[in-house]
């Protein structure tokens, strides 16, 4: 079985069902360092993506673009914009295809990461979601079974979160409170952990 528009629809629908408590947790974490809207971004974003899942085209690239559009329509926050950027970068590379092999997913994540770096201006090591993504890419490269990929990704994201907790944030609003951010979990990195765990195993 490969990664198709159905996988995207299923993922969005499942995450949407559990996003409210995740969003509340993220709002609180973000409120300590940022503007406290990360959870709202996630809740509104997944709600709006959920509204368009039925109309997603079979073309996986176009489906990812549709998700990006839905994300940006409800959120002007930087995290929402970066999520949309990631979806578009991945989508562009699979335009015209109805199915993508699971083994290709790390490559799509890599494209997403590159695009987020170039649009957002953050670097690896800045204690952002990019560092989580880096860990996930490393952990899943070479794998082709979705279930083991999700397990590996979940572990990798949590390890990255733990590895960075005692480092300072180096970009964004949290940078202003760099010292204060030492010892705190980065909200974007937490979001990555929660989303991976919310993805249905199949």
């Amino acid at each position, binding site marked *: 079985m490969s990664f198709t528009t159905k996988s995207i629809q299923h993922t969005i629908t499942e995450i949407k069902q559990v996003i409210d408590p995740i969003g509340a947790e993220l709002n609180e974490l973000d409120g300590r360092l940022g503007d406290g809207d990360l959870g709202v971004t996630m809740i509104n974003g997944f709600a709006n993506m959920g509204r368009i899942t039925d109309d997603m085209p079979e073309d996986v690239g176009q489906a990812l673009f549709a998700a990006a*559009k839905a994300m*940006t*329509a409800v959120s*002007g926050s930087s995290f929402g*914009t970066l999520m*949309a*950027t990631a979806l*578009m970068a991945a989508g*562009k590379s699979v*335009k015209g295809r109805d199915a993508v092999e699971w083994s290709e997913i790390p490559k799509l994540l890599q494209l997403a990461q590159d695009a987020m770096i170039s649009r957002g201006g953050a670097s690896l090591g800045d204690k952002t979601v990019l560092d989580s993504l880096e860990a996930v890419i490393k952990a899943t490269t070479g794998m082709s079974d979705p279930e083991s990929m999700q397990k590996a990704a979940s572990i990798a994201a949590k390890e990255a979160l733990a590895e960075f907790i005692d480092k300072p944030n180096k970009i964004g609003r949290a940078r202003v409170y760099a010292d204060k951010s030492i010892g705190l979990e980065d909200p974007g990195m937490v979001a990555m952990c929660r989303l991976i765990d919310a993805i249905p195993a199949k």
Partner: protein
Amino acid sequence: MYMLSVVLRGVCCIELRHFRIKSVLYLGGFGHIPVFAGYIGDGFLDACAVGDVFASPDMNPMLESIKFADSGQGVLCIVANYGGDRMNFDMACEMAEMDDIEAIKVIVADDVASASKEEAKKRRGVAGFVYVSKVAGAAAAKGYSLSDVADVAQKASDNCRSIGVALSSCTVPQAGKPTFEIANDEIEIGMGIHGEPGVGRSKITSVDDVVDEMLSHLLEDRPAQAGDRMAILVNGLGGTPIEELYLILRRAKSELEKIGVKLEHIRVGNYATSMEMAGASITLMQLDDELKTLLTADAVCPFWEN
């Protein structure tokens, strides 16, 4: 003003498809009436995507505008040099590419007070985008190819220099309080169109002194010589009466003519405002035959007529 900003949020466009040869559109925030909904018309813009007051629209209205404006030959998008506008536009462009629509952008960065000459690429876009849009719209109406429209728009943009002054702040509805504080007897030179800090604040002096200082910034950045041909736009920011704008023109015209500059196109009025801010800006655009022809070509829209 607030009502308008609500009514016009989203895509704003007028059915002009049957006139269109190439399409030109503007993407950016609102609050600068008549920028840019008021410049949609024959020989000017075909569409514009507007955001909330002083905020970039997200990429969705941008994409809708691009799709609306595309007649199969691509779309030129005029974007003022602000981070949010540029980022969202880049995303809208990627989206348009997925639909096989070519969208080219021209960035306007004409405010000499916002960054040094060495960092000219970081300058904000202000009233110069009215000239750039007019030139691009006229070129499109004349049947230029998309890349030629882009080239001449870029030339217009490169030839524009602007500087503003402010005597009072404006209030962004969502903020609910004035963007900045300024005393009744003070003036800020180089203030941006959203109230961004300028290059210096001082006690108000005479109009002539203020104009001289504005011109010195403009001409230091791009020196003028005898025989240079220029267009001048004396633009009100919203709260300054037109009589005062004419005082600015009087001094600017006489000083420029002293150098030997020929002013071949003169505009005075509220062309790119900052809500109710009191103040004005001067834009100079160096002209050649092509730019003059395009700037003075016929255009019909609510806020510009040739």
